[in-house]
């Protein structure tokens, strides 16, 4: 392996890349033709075996040929004269992608299952702003990828001798934080219940629908299940159903978290912070502290007891119109110490909570009206008119709802806080999962204040701060205080010499 690989001449991807391309093309074809394939599989008895297997062989050969041609015509190089990274590809339609080196924002090296099997990596290049062209090399050896990444990122700032130095340093980055399996298990057990439940629900409904389409008689005999549950006492059957749902959600949560974030490592090198994680496909992302716009720290009651938190880092979005998933980096399950270390790394100091601002009590009143009183009134009218359930039942349900909703409302009001210090704005909110959104004042892009005409008498208003990585808003606060804050933040933004990105 040469540390000074020459990128000035067009070169192909690494040879095992053909396998990756073959797999990708095969996957695409299967995805496109799966209904036909499914029919074939179901009706395999009635079809002529010779034609089926002959057809499949021919198809695979064609795909293999296409993959080879794709590999053959795909080249990349760095044009040193015009300072551009150039990718040429296409079998029939030739495409030439050129990216100016100084426009490159982020270069990430990832590995999917197939790429891991043949020992290659995928290199993705993310560019800034309106230029939406994005390029990726789907099969490149890890050493070459690392060198290319450094070349692409450092090219605009450094001359070559310096690059060599940084590469040497980059090759031995200091391991900074490693999230253990235990923390992941803790996080898996305590978060994303709703998301996993939705996933499960979707999964089961699609499965049931497909099964019912396949065969007219249902595969799972619903009557059998219901009659089995009927035999048991009501409470036991409810417990069984609830228990199995909760158990499944927990298991799905756990598996998802562990697969996605297995072996989560944060490494610090001279230029940037490198995150590596994933069990089946390894992700490798560069994080540039200058690009961080907003940090969200989430923790609920259980997680507090277990000493785990989730940190979300929102970076300046390369595509302003839609915030992409990859601009949001999640660090799951770090302890309080690790959290502080990460914040220190990104902000060079710990965010402090200094001046506290609280919402007006009317926020609680208004939310209670819309989320507690109004639903109860509607259900009352409904029951009064249609008598679908007895009054006794209504009182029972209403009490449960009122208790649940009331608790949520109260806690979300109690947790709704805004902390302002010289260098940080922290907004806390949430009833169960308590979120802390942290923004530095000089990263504010625009400020919007808003007041309804009926709020003028009570001097209440809201404020929204826009950053390149998302917004923060604080509603139903003292409008005079808010206006003072706006003046302060405008002063800070307008006098700040620091580059927001």
């Amino acid at each position, binding site marked *: 392996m040469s540390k000074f690989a020459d990128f000035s001449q067009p070169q192909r991807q690494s040879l095992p890349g053909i396998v990756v391309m073959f797999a990708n093309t095969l996957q695409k074809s299967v995805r496109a033709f799966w209904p036909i394939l499914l029919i074939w599989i179901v009706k395999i008895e009635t079809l002529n075996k010779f034609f089926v297997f002959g057809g499949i062989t021919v198809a695979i050969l064609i795909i293999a040929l296409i993959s080879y041609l794709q590999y053959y015509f795909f080249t990349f190089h760095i044009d040193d004269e015009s300072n551009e990274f150039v990718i040429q590809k296409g079998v029939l339609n030739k495409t030439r992608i050129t990216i100016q080196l100084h426009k490159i924002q982020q270069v990430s090296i990832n590995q999917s299952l197939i790429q891991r099997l043949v020992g290659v990596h995928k290199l993705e290049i993310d560019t800034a702003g309106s230029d939406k062209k994005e390029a990726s090399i789907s099969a490149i050896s890890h050493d070459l990828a690392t060198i290319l990444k450094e070349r692409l990122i450092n090219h605009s700032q450094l001359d070559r001798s310096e690059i060599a130095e940084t590469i040497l340093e980059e090759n031995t980055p200091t391991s900074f934080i490693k999230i253990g399996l235990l923390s992941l298990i803790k996080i898996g057990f305590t978060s994303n219940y709703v998301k996993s439940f939705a996933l499960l629900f979707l999964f089961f409904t699609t499965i049931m629908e497909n099964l019912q389409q396949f065969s007219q008689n249902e595969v799972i005999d619903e009557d059998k299940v219901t009659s089995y549950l009927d035999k048991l006492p009501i409470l036991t059957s409810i417990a069984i159903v609830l228990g199995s749902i909760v158990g499944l959600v927990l298991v799905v949560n756990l598996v998802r978290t562990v697969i996605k974030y297995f072996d989560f490592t944060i490494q610090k090198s001279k230029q940037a912070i490198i995150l590596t994680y994933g069990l089946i496909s390894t992700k490798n992302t560069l994080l540039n502290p200058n690009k961080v716009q907003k940090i969200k720290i989430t923790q609920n009651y259980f997680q507090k007891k277990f000493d785990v938190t989730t940190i979300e880092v929102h970076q300046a979005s390369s595509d302003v119109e839609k915030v992409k998933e990859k601009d949001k980096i999640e660090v799951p399950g770090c302890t309080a110490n690790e959290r502080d270390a990460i914040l220190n790394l990104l902000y060079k100091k710990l965010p402090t909570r200094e001046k506290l601002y609280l919402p007006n009590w009317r926020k609680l009143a208004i939310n209670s009206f819309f989320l507690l009183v109004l639903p109860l009134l509607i259900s009352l009218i409904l029951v009064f008119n249609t008598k679908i359930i007895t009054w006794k039942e209504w009182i029972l349900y209403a009490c449960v709802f009122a208790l649940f909703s009331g608790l949520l409302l109260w806690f979300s009001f109690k947790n709704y806080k805004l902390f302002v210090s010289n260098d940080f704005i922290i907004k806390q909110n949430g009833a169960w999962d308590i979120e802390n959104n942290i923004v530095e004042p000089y990263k504010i892009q*625009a*400020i919007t204040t808003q007041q*309804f005409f009926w709020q003028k008498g009570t001097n209440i208003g809201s404020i929204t701060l826009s950053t390149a990585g998302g917004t923060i808003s604080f509603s139903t606060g003292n409008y005079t205080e808010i206006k003072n804050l706006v003046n302060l933040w405008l002063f800070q933004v307008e006098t700040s010499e620091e580059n927001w990105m």
Partner: protein
Amino acid sequence: MTNFTNEAIEINELPKFEEVQLRGLHSNYLKVMLFNFSLLIILVLGGFATVFVLKKDIFSINVWGSIFVALILLLGLIVFFTKKSFKKIGYAFRSHDAIYKSGLISETTTIIPFNRVQHVALHQGFISRKLGLASVELFTAGGSSSDLKIPGLLLEEAQKIKNLVSQKINPTAERIESEPTAPLSTDSNE
């Protein structure tokens, strides 16, 4: 950053955005607003008229009468509220930021510091062009929610504002080279 202290500055002594005298939009822009609404009204009226001509029987004459009265009332209300909300719109340019205030029911004030503006655009709609009006839009990196559009400016004025903002953001444009701010300075006539 570490030697930057802000303690000495009294919050109350900072320039107050809420006390800035805002300028209203050009009175011709009210016509544009009314025209936009009248298009909608014409569509609704046209719809009812077609129904009236083709299937007169589905409503009794009383219902048709009340629909007519309701439409007239609606038209009056729209004119009334458009006028009211037109009066609420105001904008101002300070030496470091742009302020735009609007809204009848919900009064919204948006402020964009010039050192966060990515680029400036000048728009002219069909009606606006006939009336010699234009709008100026300031884009930031904060997404569409933080972009600022000031409509109803005289074309000359709008061009002046655009040039002013372009000049204000030029030093930043040089620092972040290759931002699309560069072509804007081409039509500056200073």
